[in-house]
């Protein structure tokens, strides 16, 4: 017998739950403005989530998936990705989308039940949310293939949850990315739960990151409550993708401090006290402590920032409320580039019925 293959999975952390440095601080994190930018996105994301959940309770929004506890993942990704790269989200990525130029009112519009929220006024070719779990991993590989065919130095960043890693599409995407050397970075937002099924029941694999090994490239775990580590590791992975056509899998480990969505009730399955136990790791307090210890942040600044972000969220709700109602015939208008003759009668019938949209 001889050993024909072996592998190691690294775990990256730069600032721990006490706000203390545990490894070298990257260049970007020495710039206070940069850290404050990241912190601001996390605060905005958290306040937006609270508002969105409140809106679902009054019927002004449909089902909404909160990112509470995972803000560092989305803030770090949005900061690391370049404008000309392409982002392919799953469905919890508010903090990344807003950094890509998507408006909060558009995110509300989407979860309010209106596809216009996917039209993205800022333009661009980023993907909309992907609801069928894991399917988007393949789209990312396809986009990266397009970049290779055209010889463009661009990368693709795609996310899924821990549950998504059980899908065939997840492995198929990584497999082809390895074979074709595609400039794509796969990110698993491991929040420990796929609705009610815990990470331990999803796979017997010790880490999710090691699933990259079978596809022929490297995988790593990152402390998902440490926005500095998340930003740095994704930044480097994207750079490798762009410059060397090397795909990477990052398992960003955090905790879902929320129900799966507003249609879920985690008390049915989540062990009591687990959320409270995990709360000491949550990412916003960690960066707050780190920045405060370094003297670049204070309670006063924090309050001012919170007020500014709350006002932005409030404004987005007003903007959302003032979006004119959608015309029913749009059901037909974007089905094909040009509506085929065969469906014009149905469209006319719909208009004649004169019904209007709900909500």
């Amino acid at each position, binding site marked *: 017998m001889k050993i024909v293959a072996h592998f190691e999975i690294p775990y990256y952390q730069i600032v721990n739950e006490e706000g203390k440095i545990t490894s070298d601080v990257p260049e970007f994190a020495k710039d206070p403005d940069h850290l404050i930018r990241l912190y601001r996105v996390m605060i905005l994301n958290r306040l937006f989530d609270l508002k969105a959940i409140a809106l679902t309770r009054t019927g002004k929004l449909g089902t909404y998936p909160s990112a509470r506890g995972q803000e560092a993942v989305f803030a770090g990704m949005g900061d690391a990705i370049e404008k000309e790269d*392409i982002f392919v989200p799953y469905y919890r990525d508010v903090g990344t989308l807003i950094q890509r130029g998507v408006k909060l009112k558009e995110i509300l519009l989407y979860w309010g039940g209106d596809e216009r929220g996917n039209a993205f006024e800022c333009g661009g070719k980023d993907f909309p949310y992907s609801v069928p779990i894991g399917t988007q991993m*393949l*789209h990312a590989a396809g986009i990266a293939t397009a970049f290779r065919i055209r010889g463009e130095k661009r990368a693709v960043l795609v996310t899924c949850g821990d549950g998504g890693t059980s899908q065939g599409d997840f492995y198929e995407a990584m497999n082809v990315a390895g074979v074709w050397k595609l400039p794509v970075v796969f990110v698993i937002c491991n929040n420990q739960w796929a609705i009610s099924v815990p990470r331990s029941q999803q796979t017997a694999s010790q880490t999710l990151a090691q699933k990259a090994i079978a596809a022929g490239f490297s995988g790593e775990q990152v402390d998902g409550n440490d926005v500095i580590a998340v930003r740095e590791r994704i930044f480097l992975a994207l750079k490798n993708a762009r410059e060397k056509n090397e795909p990477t899998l990052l398992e960003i480990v955090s905790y879902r401090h929320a129900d799966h969505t507003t249609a879920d009730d985690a008390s049915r399955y989540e062990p009591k006290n687990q959320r409270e136990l995990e709360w000491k790791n949550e990412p916003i307090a960690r960066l707050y402590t780190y920045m405060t210890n370094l003297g670049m942040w204070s309670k006063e600044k924090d309050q001012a920032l919170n007020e500014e972000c709350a006002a932005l969220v409030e404004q987005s709700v007003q903007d959302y409320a003032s979006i004119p109602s959608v015309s029913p015939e749009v059901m037909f208008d974007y089905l094909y580039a040009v509506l085929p003759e065969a469906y014009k009668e149905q469209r006319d019938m719909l208009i004649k019925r004169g019904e209007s949209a709900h909500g």
Partner: protein
Amino acid sequence: MAEITLVEAINQALAFEMQADPNVVVLGEDIAKNGGVFRATVGLLDKFGPERVRDTPLAESMIAGLSIGMASQGLKPVAEFQFMGFIYPALDQIINHASRMRHRTRGRLSCGVVFRTPFGAGIHAPEHHSESTEAIFAHIPGLRVVVPSSPARAYGLLLASIRNPDPVIFLEPSRLYRWAKQVVPNDGKALPLDKCFTLQVGMDITLVTWGAMVKETLAAANRLAKDGISCEIIDVATIKPLDIETILASVEKTGRCIIIHEAARTCGVGAEIAAQVAERGLMFLQAPIQRVTGYDTIVPYARLEKIYIPSENQIIETVNKVMEFA
């Protein structure tokens, strides 16, 4: 000019469009070096290189998902599924994403992909290689389903499908791949999508069909002509969206309608055509609409497949029955 087969016409169309449009990319299993198991893509690798002619890993959902990603950035992928029986893992991608990318992004992204696959029985292939499940795709909003039945229509309809900005399921009747040869000028001229083709003008009865069953239908009509029955033959060609107007105009003239397809009867595309003819053209009919179809069974393995496929005789018997009605 040499006559070519249907599969050679597919190849000719692919080569023409790859030459004309650098965004056209072909991908699939065994399509590059091997030129495809039916040789539909033979020679493309040498002409256009491995970036644009890609052998994929063996995963059909992946082929569809990659194509969706590529198309979102402006490429024109033409993806091959080796047999229709292997397209099912890709249904998730085709139904959940390809068909609705334009709709759910309000036109910001689109999915101009051609999903090609051979389909149908009659070539002594293994199990799962003889499916005719076009109705699955015909049911999905946002898709087009195109079925050529001659070398010229294969060439013109494939060019039209590649140039179309929306997803097309392009079903190639494998039984006809090398059946009849025809001169097909390589002039880059597309044929219209969403239109039926009237293959033969007749006065007594309208025979509506597509794909490989065009062969038996033409032969049956030939024999019926000797008995003085004049059949009008319509090749539907684009089964979604359906050009019901051409079919209705024919039924108005003949007063009789038979729909012939290889696929299983229940919820087949024939049922939709019959329903629309009944809804809009009942007053034209002198006899009930009839269907000649495959049985509501699994397509049998090679020894029974000829019995499964509707025969020339079944068509003739049904025509005679309808002619006797009134």
